[in-house]
């Protein structure tokens, strides 16, 4: 999420360090930083910290613990939740909505936001809409609670009362959302509904309805600060193809306690930027959560991290994080009460992690494991290593082809693109295809016969197994695939199951050279030279006049007759940036012909 340094500063009296230092502090003690642009950090909050860190307050708390710099005393929380009869709230299923706070504000004036509010939102890439919507967004990015506002006058009032009901959608219901899209709803989607008229006001935690939305003429508001079930909401947002900043926060599960802070801040800000007066607040809170206490011993922390921290050092970390240590008990046991928003902290290892990351993992030394008894080689590994070595000694090169195939017994159900969804039942097809592709490049490869093999997994007859297969280019007077296969079968049949030695050789000390993706052109040249002239001598002349397009040159025939030697060479031309034309090769060949003639060699 985008975090502005100026915005963060509002949580601290003391001047924060420069933005790059903040980025480093977070990187090594909390979260990856995706980018730093100007004074804005893009923080990649991990999935376990979506509970508490998708806000400036959350990141400020982290920095306060890491740097460490004290936070200002909390500035929200002055508004009293005075009840009102003008609003009723009904939650059908408290497992899907653990808390719903509604507030009635009347006499607001909807309009543009003040400059400071617009600038805050724009600094993190958010668009300003109007003062009420901006207030909701500001509070969400400030402290993490998603909020919403309805135009109260779009609800049906009975005896001056309106009712908000939280229930699942009914079959066939549809809603037009704020972005003018009509959505068909299914029964597992949680909705905010006008309890009197039954009209749909919005998709809970996902998107408000257009009908009930705040407009320029709105004067009375119902503010919503609620807690919706994460997994259920994730399914809804996926089905509707909506993923808003609000859904993102609910999906990660947030504490229902936060809803109260959110509502107080929301009310204060709306009154400040849109005027009006608070009529009252209704807090329906069926799912109140207890405070978590988690214990860990000092020895456990040190043994898991490989450190030798003192009780005092550990104590300091917990107090910087706002984890309060319970009184009494052994001095070497830390029983700490975890802040309510830290839903990720539940077991001793979670506390180990808190200590490790706040202290800094750079403090962890590198220590080798104690010496263990000798390892017995894995039978399969040894077997395939032996077969691999045998095939390579026979001139075969090892390839890997895809496990996905055009057709076979089993398939994956959801392949992106849908191409080749089947799991191969043999290696043969993939290998044959690879053979053909490599044969086309044979001149470039400079090999006499293309021979490849694969050791790979196949799925056949309801079983998964590893197989070895070969593919051999058919060439006259050379050994055929069948002959090689027979030899391989014999070799394999002789392999004893007790073979446990694994052939190994050092890794090649090479640097991969990219090859051209363009087609190449081969040309042969045969010539007579006087006996005693070496092939290398001739090749040197050829290479010197062939230019930089010559990528490979090799002798393929040689014989001596009546005091003269005949050589035949294959020359391969290729460019890195274009498809060569015949003329390109012709020009090069002409200069080669001229050069060899000058040497007195006769082109045949």
């Amino acid at each position, binding site marked *: 999420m985008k975090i502005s340094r100026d915005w963060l500063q509002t949580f601290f009296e003391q001047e924060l360090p420069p933005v790059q230092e903040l980025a480093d502090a977070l*990187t090594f*003690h*909390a979260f*990856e930083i995706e980018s730093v642009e100007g004074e804005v950090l893009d923080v990649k909050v*991990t*999935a376990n910290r979506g509970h508490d860190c998708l806000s400036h307050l959350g990141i400020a708390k982290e920095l306060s613990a890491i740097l460490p710099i004290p936070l200002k005393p909390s500035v929200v929380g002055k508004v009293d939740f005075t009840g009102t009869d003008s609003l009723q709230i009904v939650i059908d299923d408290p497992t899907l909505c653990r808390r719903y706070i509604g507030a009635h504000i009347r006499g607001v004036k909807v309009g543009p936001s003040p400059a400071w509010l617009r600038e805050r939102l724009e600094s993190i890439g958010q668009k300003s809409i109007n003062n009420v919507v901006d207030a909701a967004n500001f509070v969400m990015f400030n402290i993490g609670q998603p909020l919403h506002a309805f135009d109260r006058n779009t609800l049906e009032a009975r005896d001056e009362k309106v009712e908000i009901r939280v229930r699942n959608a009914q079959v066939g219901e549809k809603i037009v959302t704020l972005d003018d899209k009509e959505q068909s709803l299914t029964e597992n989607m949680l909705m905010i509904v006008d309890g009197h008229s039954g009209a749909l006001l919005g998709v809970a935690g996902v998107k408000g309805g257009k009908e009930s939305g705040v407009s320029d003429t709105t004067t009375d508001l119902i503010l919503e600060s609620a807690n919706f079930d994460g997994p259920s909401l*994730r399914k809804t947002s996926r089905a509707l193809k909506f993923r808003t900043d609000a859904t993102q926060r609910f999906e990660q599960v947030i504490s229902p306690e936060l809803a109260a802070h959110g509502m107080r801040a929301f009310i204060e800000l709306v009154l400040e930027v849109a005027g009006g007066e608070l009529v009252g607040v209704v807090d329906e809170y069926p799912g109140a959560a207890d405070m978590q206490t988690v214990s860990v011993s000092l020895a456990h922390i040190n*043994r*898991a*991290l*490989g450190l030798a921290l003192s009780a005092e050092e550990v104590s300091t970390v917990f107090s910087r994080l706002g984890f309060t240590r319970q009184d009494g008990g052994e001095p070497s046991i830390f029983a700490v009460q975890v802040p309510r928003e830290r839903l990720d902290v539940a*077991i001793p*290892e979670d506390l*180990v*992690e808190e200590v*490790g*990351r706040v202290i800094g*993992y750079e403090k*962890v030394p*590198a*220590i*080798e*494991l104690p*010496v263990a008894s000798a*390892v017995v080689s*894995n039978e399969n*590994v040894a077997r395939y290593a032996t077969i*691999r070595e045998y095939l*390579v*000694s026979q*001139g075969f*090169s*090892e*390839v*890997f*082809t*895809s496990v*996905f195939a055009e057709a076979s017994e*089993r*398939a*994956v*159900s*959801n*392949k*992106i693109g849908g191409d080749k969804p089947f799991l191969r039942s043999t290696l043969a097809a993939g290998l044959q295809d*690879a053979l053909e*592709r490599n044969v086309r*490049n044979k001149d*470039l*490869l400079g090999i006499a016969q*293309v*021979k490849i093999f694969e050791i790979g*997994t196949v799925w056949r007859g309801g079983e*998964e197994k590893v197989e070895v297969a070969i593919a051999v280019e058919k060439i006259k007077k050379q050994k055929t695939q069948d002959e090689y296969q027979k030899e391989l079968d014999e070799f394999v049949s002789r392999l004893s199951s007790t073979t446990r030695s*694994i052939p*190994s050789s*050092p*890794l090649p000390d090479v*640097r*991969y050279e990219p090859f051209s993706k363009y087609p190449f052109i081969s040309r042969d040249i045969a010539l007579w030279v006087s006996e005693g002239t070496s092939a290398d001598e001739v090749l040197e002349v050829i290479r010197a006049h062939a230019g930089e397009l010559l990528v490979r040159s090799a002798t393929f025939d040689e014989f001596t007759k009546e005091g003269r030697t005949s050589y035949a060479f294959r020359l391969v031309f290729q460019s890195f940036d274009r498809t060569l034309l015949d003329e390109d090769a012709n020009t090069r060949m002409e200069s080669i012909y001229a050069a060899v003639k000058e040497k007195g060699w006769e082109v045949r």
Partner: protein
Amino acid sequence: MERGHVHPISQLVAEATRIFAGMGFAVAEGPLLEDEWHNFDALNVPKDHPARDMQDTFFIKDEHEKVLRTHTSSVQIRFMEEQIKNGVQPPYRIIVPGKVFRNEATDMTHEAEFFQIEALAVGEDISMAHLKGTLARFFKELFGGAAVEIRFRPSFFPFTEPSVEVDMRLVGEHVPEKLRDKWIEMGGAGMVHPTVLKNCGVDAEKYRGFAFGFGLDRLAMLKWSIDDVRLMHSADLRFINQF
């Protein structure tokens, strides 16, 4: 007869196997087509975790709770379950080199099928310092004795607690310039989550462990300056015969 060429990934696996054997790690194996218990549940990945979403995992048609494994970590579970079944208590030290799958569009740095190597060490007194020490020795040997520094950054994986990202830096004059003195992100690691140990029947009060997993394709790309991950499955000898 002129020798053929071993695929660079196989060469890397063989070398890693040799280095880890020197530290007491044996190779363990498991199926590529996994059940959700071994690939997710036992690894403490909850049912509603985003990683289990349709778009990341290949599910098998008409086969309930079957997936192409998304990581080699599934083999940690199989191995520990098997040991406990046979009455063999820790210490355990294994590595798992093998193919894994991710249902995503491919480009120069992403492949739907690729290779990982996983390591697991479980014992009475295993710490993050051992994790660092093991990684340092592995990379040092792999990069021909270069001086290696290992750095951890906090991260999150459901199957480790604490969880870290591992960065590595090679220093010294004979390190290729492209790699010298640069921090390179290698993969994820951490202390095995006690729930994972419990799920396999290992006494989590008594034993602790570390685990890490890296992409082998990426390691090969670094080691030999390979610019496109898709070459690994290209079966193209213009590539393979360079090694």
